[in-house]
């Protein structure tokens, strides 16, 4: 089974047209010693029926999927309206290529234009691109743009940026060129960031809300970056941006982040959706694809890929980035998602996150042994200090059918008592009660 449609007579006609007797004659350029005698030893072939049985069994082994999720840490269990799947699974979108021939790709191009428009609005920036791989690589690209723009090398990371984002930054850049200024009481402290900045600093990167779910003070961080001649880069959750003052309005030069929360499933962490938005003055330095509005010869409105001379297929070693394939279909999902929720719905989602997470935090504070780890305002996610190791709480969740949060001990040993809890609009009062019961049980088992 290879999904080929080649009849025996047809094959003979083709070989005749080609002018060879046998297929093998076409492989003359390949050294004999590397031609396999037997195909690789892989399992299969499996029919649909067998494949569904096998992968269905594996899917059921993921009992994480059956639990009510209070996990966040960069990936969130948000509502995905039914229409998102219905529309985004249309094969007209799914099986199309990158829109290099705009006359037959107006569907994809128009949707990307709408995505750019909404991401620019959400972030308060002038322009947004067509997507990046994920929040971490979008952050790296932002840092690289800041380095090109300023001619400086040092990247200053302020406070509780997601540990994985920090890790990816350190993979891409020379680790010595990444300075991390730690938090105080969970937040980036502008004075500490200022002290870390020098004439070699290209940018300040902070996360909003930060890894602990806390709301940072963007205007102060932007001002400090700019005083030092560095760019201000905000790594933001797009749902939070429906409620919070957008950083682009208070001086952020670049706003990037992970937009899985806009209509994409968690899918074990991928595919995700990185977004990249910036000030107009940085336009020619942007990584990735951009779509612009234009007209055809009859004056009809249409959309095309534009400013392609920035990109690898034209600029090659001088390109602004090496990115080619991006996360187009996830951007489409986000576009449909934002279109459905609209002006009111997205704000309501954000407010429900605030109300429900605070309700959960109040319940937890009333359970003996548990306390909120930080006092600063939080958006959808908070850190609980537990009376036992957080992994015990996670284990206790199985009994109540909940994943009560993320054991932060997996990131740092000294965080072993900390549980990172996310409460989205999907969680109802009963589920939050079961979550609280989990805390009780785990705490009592001390």
């Amino acid at each position, binding site marked *: 089974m290879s999904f080929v449609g080649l009849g025996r007579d047809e094959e003979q006609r083709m070989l005749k047209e080609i002018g060879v007797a046998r297929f093998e004659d076409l492989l003359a350029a390949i050294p004999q010693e590397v031609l396999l005698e037997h195909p690789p030893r892989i399992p299969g072939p499996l029919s649909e029926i067998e494949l569904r049985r096998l992968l269905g069994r594996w899917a059921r082994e993921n009992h994480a999927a059956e639990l009510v999720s209070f996990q966040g840490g960069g990936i969130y269990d948000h509502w995905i309206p039914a229409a998102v799947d219905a529309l985004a699974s249309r094969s007209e979108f799914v099986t199309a290529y990158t829109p290099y021939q705009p006359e037959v790709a107006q569907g994809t191009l128009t949707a990307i234009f709408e995505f750019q428009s909404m991401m620019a609005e959400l972030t308060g920036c002038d322009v947004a691109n067509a997507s990046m791989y994920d929040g971490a690589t979008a952050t790296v690209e932002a840092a690289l743009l800041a380095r090109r723009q300023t001619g400086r090398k040092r990247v200053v990371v302020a406070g509780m940026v997601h540990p994985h984002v920090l890790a990816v930054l350190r993979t891409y850049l020379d680790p010595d060129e990444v300075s991390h200024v730690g938090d105080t009481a969970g937040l980036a402290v502008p004075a500490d960031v200022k002290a870390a900045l020098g004439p070699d600093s290209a940018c300040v990167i902070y996360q909003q809300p930060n890894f602990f779910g806390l709301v940072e003070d963007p205007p102060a961080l932007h001002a400090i970056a700019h005083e030092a001649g560095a760019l201000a880069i905000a790594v933001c959750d797009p749902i939070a941006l429906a409620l919070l003052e957008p950083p682009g309005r208070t001086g952020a030069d670049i706003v990037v982040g992970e937009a899985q929360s806009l209509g994409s499933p968690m899918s074990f962490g991928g595919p995700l959706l990185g977004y990249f938005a910036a000030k107009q003055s940085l336009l020619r330095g942007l990584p990735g694809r951009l779509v612009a509005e234009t007209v055809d010869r009859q004056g009809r409105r249409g959309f095309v890929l534009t400013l392609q*001379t920035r990109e690898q297929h*034209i600029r090659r070693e001088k390109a602004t980035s090496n990115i080619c394939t991006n996360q187009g279909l996830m951007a489409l999902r986000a576009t449909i998602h934002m279109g459905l929720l609209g002006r009111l719905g997205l704000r309501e989602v954000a407010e429900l996150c605030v109300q429900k997470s605070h309700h959960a935090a109040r319940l937890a504070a009333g359970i003996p042994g548990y306390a909120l780890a930080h006092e600063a305002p939080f958006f959808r996610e908070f850190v609980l200090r537990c009376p036992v190791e957080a992994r015990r709480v996670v284990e206790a969740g199985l009994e109540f059918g909940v994943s009560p949060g993320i054991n932060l001990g997996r990131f740092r040993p000294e965080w072993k008592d900390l549980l990172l809890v996310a409460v989205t609009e999907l969680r109802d009062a009963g589920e939050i009660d079961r979550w609280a019961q989990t805390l009780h049980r785990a705490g009592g088992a001390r």
Partner: protein
Amino acid sequence: MRYPDDVRYTAEHEWARLENGIITIGVTSYATEQLGDVVFVELPEIGVRLEALKTFGVIEAVKTVSDLFAPVSGEVLERNGALSDNPALVNQDPFGEGWILRLRPSDPGEYAKLMSNVDYERHVEEQHA
């Protein structure tokens, strides 16, 4: 003649015109035909010193981009500001309104070494062949 005789040429398809000790530079009509619609010209700041046959900027069309090479060495005196609003001038009038920079040459001997329009036309024909 396809190419004007009051300017001199480089193999990279720039031209230079010497008037009153000042050199104006631009790209040739052959270059603009090859590039297609010019959409952006990236220029050096005034006062920058250019070195002959080194790149000093970039000219971009929709799907191609080309480095600009200085025909002669010298200091940038003036940039064609009209190009930022209307880069199409380079296509419309490459030897006139579409000029790119004015330089004060630092080595007067360099200008004389550039190609004449006859040599340049032959050079273009050879490239085509």
